[in-house]
């Protein structure tokens, strides 16, 4: 079996960008350990691994933000604007009757829609 050292050097594509703001960070221990492990798996630097992890986290963050935004937008459409300044409501009994209708109507065979 050929040793790893004898294999042609094929460095993985680096995640570090050629451009962008530079920054200096203090990395928490647990994150540094994860980055070191990923760097070892990919055969790249710890900084490169950190960028990969950050990119994955940023993608998840953006996805969650998009979902939350869409969810709020839909809810705003459901709530809408109040249609009555001085609403007239059904009586207690009428409201109760309506509220319990699902069980009576929704799954009844032959229910007239």
């Amino acid at each position, binding site marked *: 079996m050929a040793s790893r050292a004898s294999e042609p050097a094929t460095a993985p594509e680096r995640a570090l960008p050629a451009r962008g703001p530079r920054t200096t960070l203090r990395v928490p221990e647990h994150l540094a350990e994860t980055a070191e492990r990923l760097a070892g798996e990919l055969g790249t630097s710890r900084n490169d691994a950190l960028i990969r992890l950050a990119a994955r986290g940023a993608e998840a963050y953006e996805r969650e933000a998009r979902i939350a935004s869409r969810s709020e937008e839909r809810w705003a459409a*459901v709530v809408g604007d109040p249609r009555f300044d001085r609403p007239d409501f059904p009586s207690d009994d009428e409201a109760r009757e309506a509220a319990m209708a699902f069980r009576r109507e929704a799954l009844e065979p032959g229910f007239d829609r």
Partner: protein
Amino acid sequence: MTALWDTSVLSRLHPEGSLLEYMLDQALAENPVRIASVALLEVAYGYERRIQDPRYQALLDWLTGLLAGNAFHAVSLDGRAALVAGRVRARMPHPPATRRGDRRSKTMRQAAWLLDIEIAATAYMAGLDLATENRRDFESIARVLVALFPRAEPLAIVGPPV
């Protein structure tokens, strides 16, 4: 202990009723009323079915406003509750024997039974008691839960808060 409202309790919520006063007091005390999402589904269905009558439109708007304003907290049937509900349904596929005077068809009773199981499982997994006017059926579900999970604290069935 805080109790989850089922459909029978939520159906009594009215703009001019005492349950609303209780709900708002609870919200101010930062211990909001909890309502099963399934019960909310049922009630919204009933109001929407009568939406041509502007009074029901007003009622639906009012209920929507309560939800939007966090006057109560809707508790969903999540994955854990769904798992429990499925197990309960398998153990007790049919509701308890019909009460005298119950004129619902078998299909309707089955549908109502599934909804009750979902509501009970929601309360159980959320760590809540269950508030209902229909204690008999829910106590049957609570007994199944005890049989399934004897080491867990049983689901307590209580009456409406007011």
